[in-house]
């Protein structure tokens, strides 16, 4: 709901109250949920709900005025922006975290430490028939290649396919898709020739059982790490994550307070959701954007 009066009075020291309706990317959901949780710990009268309609689906609702904030794992597209414009809903893009996908292999995989994007594409592109490491590179052994990846309806999948195959959603289809990263860990640690991918922090936790590969995006092999994700050198598997609050919604005290809180306590939020934190620079940029917005709104 987007009515003007369903936020509580925000005068003076009074704590904000009322709903904050968030929807959108399932990738970003853990972040906004963690932020909401922390925020509600201090503001028990606010109700933050976080749906997972996907970035596209989220924008659809957002531009129909159904939600206050849209989660997005990519910047808004022009068509989507136009839709919002038609409904005269204006919004602001705020980066809230960095994400890095990590390509993992079995510990016993001694033949490689680094794959080029070209090689990854060879493995993952639609219609790919690569079944053995030898087909990836003749110098590799003839070890059968078992592939594990994100389910085809997840943000991780969209992002990986976009980065590796050049087009969102384009992928070979005969891999083992799963929403459950534990299963990927199990699968990859169980077969010598296995390969999979998932979020960087999840790799950190299971570093003892798996081996992360460096990725060569054209500028040499880069190891996935917080730093390489933040500075974008871990290309092309690092990306920013966003939230899009609508300006109308920001007029509601509870939404405004929430977004402020989101940025203010970003380190905590990112840690809880296990993403790669923002750099100081990125933080400042986001905060500035918010301030500017508030100024525009005449506060």
């Amino acid at each position, binding site marked *: 709901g987007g009515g003007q009066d369903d936020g509580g009075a925000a005068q003076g020291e009074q704590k904000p109250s009322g709903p904050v309706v968030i929807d959108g990317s399932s990738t970003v959901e853990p972040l906004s949920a963690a932020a909401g949780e922390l925020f509600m710990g201090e503001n028990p009268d606010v109700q933050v709900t976080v*749906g997972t309609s996907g970035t596209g689906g989220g924008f659809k609702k957002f531009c129909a005025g159904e939600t206050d904030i849209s989660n997005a794992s990519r910047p808004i597209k022009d068509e989507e922006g136009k839709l919002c414009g038609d409904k005269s809903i204006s919004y602001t893009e705020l980066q809230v975290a960095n994400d890095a996908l990590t390509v993992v292999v079995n510990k016993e995989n001694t033949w490689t430490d680094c794959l080029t994007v070209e090689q990854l594409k060879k493995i993952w592109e639609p219609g790919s028939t690569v079944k053995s490491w030898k087909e990836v590179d003749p110098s590799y052994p003839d070890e059968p290649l078992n592939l594990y990846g994100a389910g085809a309806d997840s943000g991780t999948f969209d992002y990986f396919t976009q980065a590796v195959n050049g087009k969102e959603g384009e992928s070979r289809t005969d891999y083992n898709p799963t929403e459950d990263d534990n299963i990927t860990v199990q699968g990859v640690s169980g077969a010598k020739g296995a390969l999979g991918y998932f979020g960087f922090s999840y790799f950190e936790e299971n570093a003892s059982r798996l081996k992360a590969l460096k990725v060569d995006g054209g500028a040499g092999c880069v190891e996935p790490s917080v730093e390489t994700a933040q500075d974008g050198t871990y290309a092309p598997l690092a990306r920013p994550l966003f939230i899009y609050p609508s300006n109308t919604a920001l007029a509601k005290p509870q939404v405004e307070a929430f977004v402020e809180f989101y940025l203010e306590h970003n380190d*905590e939020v990112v840690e809880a959701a296990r993403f790669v934190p923002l750099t100081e620079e990125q933080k400042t940029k986001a905060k500035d954007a918010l301030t500017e917005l508030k100024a525009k709104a005449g506060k």
Partner: protein
Amino acid sequence: MSTTTRNPAGALRSGRRGSTSSTIFAAVLWACLAIICAFLFFILAVIIQKGLARFDLDLVTRQPSKIHPETAGVASALYGTLWVSGLTALIALPLGIGAAVYLEEYADPRAWWNRLIELNIQNLAAVPTVIYGILTLAFVVRGPLSVGAVVLAGGVALSLLILPVVIITTREALRSVPSEIRSGSLALGATLWQTTWRQTLPAAVPGIATGSILALSRAIGEAAPLILVGATTFITFNPDGIFSRYTTLPVQIYNLVPQDRQEFRDLAYAAILLLIIVLLAMNALAIWLRNRYQRRW
């Protein structure tokens, strides 16, 4: 008939043909039951063993948390389940019992439209639960009603789902009321509704209650249709009305188990244990009702 010489007396002892195969047969049957029971006890044991770790007060008093899964609870899902199943009871029971009374007491079973209704209900009972999710999604969450992913939508989805079950079990309960009671009442000049309301329904109450409880317990354990109507939202407050957003225990379990941290899994199994306890209690109540009150006419 040939005049077989009949050996009198003791010869009754002969025979016992096929008694070995008969024993083996009985043993196989018994083994079937034993396997089924063993499986049941096995899963119950697993759930208890894995669920006990986090089966504490936090489970029901605290809200889900992404930050502190080790002390998180499932309060919003528990209350969501209560809201949704309460609403389901309010919608499905009157409608289901009403429909059953109509079919059993009022309808001419030979009229084509009544036969159609009957056939239709039998078919609905076999419709996959996801289809009810699709239906509710199209008409309630979006479409004409467009109430969004709120308690009301969940209640409607589950009501539609259990409606055929309620109708079928209520009809059975009504059918088990002997017709003498009805004819006795009607022969005294009571109207059909008087007879139904004062004689048939009261006599069928135990059966109806049993069936209703079992139907509701089915609704409580159901996740598939709710996933379609958007109950998967992350929610950390209890619903406070039928237009509140909500989540339920089975949906929460579905979300929790694949999470990456062990604490979430422990919490999930505790939630499973909680759900199973609720459902077993309802089953036990239904069985008790059935054994205690079901009259043998």
